[in-house]
């Protein structure tokens, strides 16, 4: 439910942007546990608050201020959500100014993850805009002494057609600010045909700043008197400093201080990792000083972790019965009947985020308060962890959110901001902590390594008479609970619990795995490995059955139906089933569209070429992907063409959405070609782009066609859903081209590059 208050006379103004007398609307929403809605099972604190707040101010000169409370990391969310508000307000986009919110719970959830910014705040933005428009019309009507019903708006003006009068929003702002806020049921929302911006989109609000180098990322934040810090972290998770010698480091020109940072108390959550910090006059001096530190480490129990041995353990576990998450019929009886049976082990290693901007944060502790400037996806988590680390109230932690030089989930975890805060308190000055690329790769919260075991028996028609899928991965919950080993519901749901096929006998299981590194969300998260396992195994079955991959996939998806999750722990990404049912018809439709658009079965393929297909729903969006590859005699893989069809409900910003899916294909290319983090004696082996390569311009799809389904369904996610089906379709295409079935990523393991 929501409440709206006219807060013109309160001190809610951010940054002094709004002149006195301006109309300010605070729209406050509270998490809505709908009656009859079994949701949500997701108890993650960052998802738990569903009370977005929108601040809208209209100045007397007609400037419309919209506060963006979500973090901009390249998805264009800082533009797209304000567009929704501006549309209902009927505002002139050229007169809109966007301000970035600080971290504050009055804005509701600010954790910009899970591809849910538009989904969660679309209604709130519309309501805020419609409310303001209602009040501006009322103000004009009173001014002209005419019925409000005779007035309407037209691009930043209220007009009264019978008398041909009109007034700019700026001229009405003061009068509107004195009116009481209308009830929600009295609001009039625009019809789809009246939309100016939603569905048409706009370029990023920051575009000019980005191409001129003026945009301020976390790396670019500066305040007077600041010093720079670089931190040597324990190489093994949970390790600590036994001893260190600061003498050599202090001799480096520009180095001011060497300071130890306490190790975290398990579980790690978002605490600083601990280690030794070098404080210097510039970043370079801090890096140089760090090289001279002579540290002896106590590595702790994770010292025995070896990713090779760990992989064997995961695979063994995946072969044993696990916890049942969902099922139907009698799988064991069906398997016992024999027939053609296939088994496969699928594996995806740990993956690092490698955002182009490494972790960085500037923090200033002064007069008992901490101010941070940080590229964070979650400024309220910054408040939480800094408050705990420094022992000050949350309200005394002010987190300014800069632009993010990529996030991909890594910057939802503010350990690096906490590090800057702790150091600023110790140093007594503003401190900017700069992680090197090596720090970024070695001290990530990695996407979980996963082993999956799949088994199916085929009937005479080639359809599975029984289907078993079992995944094993160290859960993200392990960073909050040292004993967590089973997959948690919010991540099992990601392409595993909701295997969508229309099958008589199936069973979905999960086995235990203990984490030895920090596990965290990475773009698409568990969907990456789950879609890889399910969609590639489907392709294996199609070939075993002698069927066309597309026909077989459509056959398994079955006729359009709503999947019944009664009695199943399936949180549907925190969304209601009423608004976001799992509709196999929509998955079917995108599959049919991508097949048609890509010319499936009709394209002439040359020697070494192959096409693969995959379909997957994640973050409530339905996506199907066709990838064409060409593999030469040396095993070099080109990607001449990719087609993607997506149904994300209402799409606010189509151009930005296309860009997200183009980018998803590149992100997926990195995963398939080269994504692999390994560890020896508990320490990560990779360090920079030479041993954790990501895709370059000459390695990516040469053409990516994104087909957006026109839909009136409520908006779903667009940042993440493109990745999972791309990975699977890419590997299926490699099989079609080479006969090599990729079950173990990355493809370098198969002599492919």
């Amino acid at each position, binding site marked *: 439910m929501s409440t709206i208050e006219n807060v013109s006379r309160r001190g809610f103004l951010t940054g002094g942007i709004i002149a006195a007398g301006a109309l300010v609307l605070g729209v406050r929403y509270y998490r809505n546990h709908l009656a009859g809605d079994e949701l949500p099972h997701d108890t993650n604190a960052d998802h738990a608050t569903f009370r977005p707040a929108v601040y809208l101010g209209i100045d007397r000169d007609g400037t419309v201020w919209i506060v963006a409370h979500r973090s901009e990391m390249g998805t264009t969310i800082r533009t797209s959500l304000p567009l929704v508000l501006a549309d209902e307000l009927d505002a002139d986009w050229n007169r809109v100014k966007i301000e970035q919110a600080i971290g504050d719970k009055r804005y509701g959830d600010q954790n910009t993850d899970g591809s849910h910014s538009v989904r969660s705040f679309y209604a709130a933005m519309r309501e805020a805009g419609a409310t303001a428009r209602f009040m501006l019309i009322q103000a004009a009507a009173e001014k002209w002494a005419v019925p409000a019903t005779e007035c309407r708006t037209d691009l930043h003006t209220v007009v009264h057609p019978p008398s041909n009068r009109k007034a700019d929003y700026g001229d009405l702002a003061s009068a509107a600010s004195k009116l009481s806020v209308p009830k929600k049921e009295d609001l009039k929302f625009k019809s789809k045909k009246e939309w100016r911006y939603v569905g048409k989109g706009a370029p990023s609000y920051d575009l000019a700043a980005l191409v001129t180098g003026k945009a301020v990322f976390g790396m670019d934040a*500066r305040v007077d008197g600041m010093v720079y810090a670089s931190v040597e972290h324990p190489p093994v998770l949970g390790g600590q400093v036994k001893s260190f010698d600061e003498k050599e480091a202090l001799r480096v020109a*520009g180095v001011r201080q060497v300071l130890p940072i306490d190790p975290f108390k398990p579980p790690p959550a978002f605490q600083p990792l601990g280690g030794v910090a070098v404080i210097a006059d510039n970043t*370079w001096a801090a890096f140089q000083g760090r090289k001279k530190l002579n540290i002896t480490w106590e590595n702790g129990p994770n010292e025995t972790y070896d990713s090779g041995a760990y992989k064997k353990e995961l695979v063994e576990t995946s072969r044993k019965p696990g916890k049942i998450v969902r099922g139907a019929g009698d799988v064991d009886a069906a398997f016992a009947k024999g027939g053609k049976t296939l088994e496969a082990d699928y594996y995806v290693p740990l993956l690092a985020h490698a955002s182009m901007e490494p972790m960085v944060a500037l923090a200033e502790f002064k007069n008992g308060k901490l101010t941070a400037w940080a590229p964070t996806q979650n400024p309220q988590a910054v408040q939480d962890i800094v408050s705990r680390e420094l022992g000050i109230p949350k309200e005394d932690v002010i987190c300014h959110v800069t632009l*993010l030089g990529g996030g991909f989930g890594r910057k939802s975890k503010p350990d690096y901001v906490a590090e800057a805060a702790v150091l600023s308190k110790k140093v007594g000055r503003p401190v900017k902590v700069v992680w090197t690329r090596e720090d970024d790769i070695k001290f990530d919260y990695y996407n979980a390594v996963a082993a999956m075991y799949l088994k199916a028996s085929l009937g005479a028609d080639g359809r599975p008479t029984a289907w078993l899928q079992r995944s094993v991965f160290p859960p993200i919950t392990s960073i909050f609970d040292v004993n967590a080993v089973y997959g948690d519901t919010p991540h099992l749901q990601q392409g595993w619990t909701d295997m969508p096929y229309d099958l008589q006998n199936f069973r979905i299981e999960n086995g235990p795995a203990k984490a030895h590194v920090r596990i965290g969300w990475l773009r698409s998260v568990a969907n990456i490995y789950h879609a890889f396992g399910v969609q590639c195994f489907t392709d294996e079955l199609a070939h075993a059955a002698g069927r066309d991959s597309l026909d077989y996939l459509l056959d398994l998806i079955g006729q359009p139906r709503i999947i019944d999750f009664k009695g199943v722990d399936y949180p549907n990404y925190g969304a209601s089933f009423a608004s976001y049912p799992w509709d196999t018809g929509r998955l079917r439709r995108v599959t049919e569209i991508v097949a048609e658009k890509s010319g499936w079965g009709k394209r002439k393929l040359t020697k070494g070429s192959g096409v693969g297909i995959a379909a997957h729903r994640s973050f409530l969006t339905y996506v199907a992907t066709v990838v064409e590859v060409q593999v030469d005699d040396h095993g070099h893989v080109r990607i001449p063409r990719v087609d993607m069809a997506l149904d994300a409900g209402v799409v606010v910003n189509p151009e930005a959405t296309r860009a997200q899916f183009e980018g998803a294909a590149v992100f997926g290319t990195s995963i398939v070609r080269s994504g692999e983090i390994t560890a020896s004696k508990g320490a990560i082996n990779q360090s920079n782009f030479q041993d954790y390569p990501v895709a370059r*311009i000459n390695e990516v799809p040469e053409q990516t066609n994104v087909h957006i389904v026109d839909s009136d369904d409520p908006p779903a996610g667009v940042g993440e859903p493109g990745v999972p089906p791309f990975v699977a379709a890419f590997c299926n295409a490699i099989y079609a081209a080479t006969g090599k079935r990729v079950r173990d990523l990355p493809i370098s393991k198969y002599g492919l590059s």
Partner: protein
Amino acid sequence: MIQLNVNGEQRSFDGDPEMPLLWYLRDVLGLTGTKFGCGVALCGACTVHADGQATRSCIVRMRDLAGKNITTIEGLERNGMHPVQKAWMQINVPQCGYCQVGQMMQAAALLQSKKNPSDRDIDDAMSGNICRCGTYGRIRAAIKAAAEEMA
């Protein structure tokens, strides 16, 4: 004391001659348009022009820059925007945008030497510049658009 020219202004530097140009630009001069991405010339985020050549500022040392003319994004075009910047806007290239300054500096240098670059030329010139958001298709299109404008 090292004398060099940055964006048309004479500068002198008397700090650690081993310091890479990147940190001089960012931390000393406050020219933060040039980005730190990897520190070892593997990603191209720090690309600037040194005497017109695309250069990875994270590895070139101050001691090697005496008498050089350095151009950063802040000095790429004094009046308005360079054709690559215009093309970057027209094609909506940036997502997060962090790597794009380096991409544009690399592209501008490419277009200095090749007026009408082929796809192969673009691959050769641009494959040292990583974009993790995956804007490569648009980068390619924008380079071609800029080449047309400059023709």
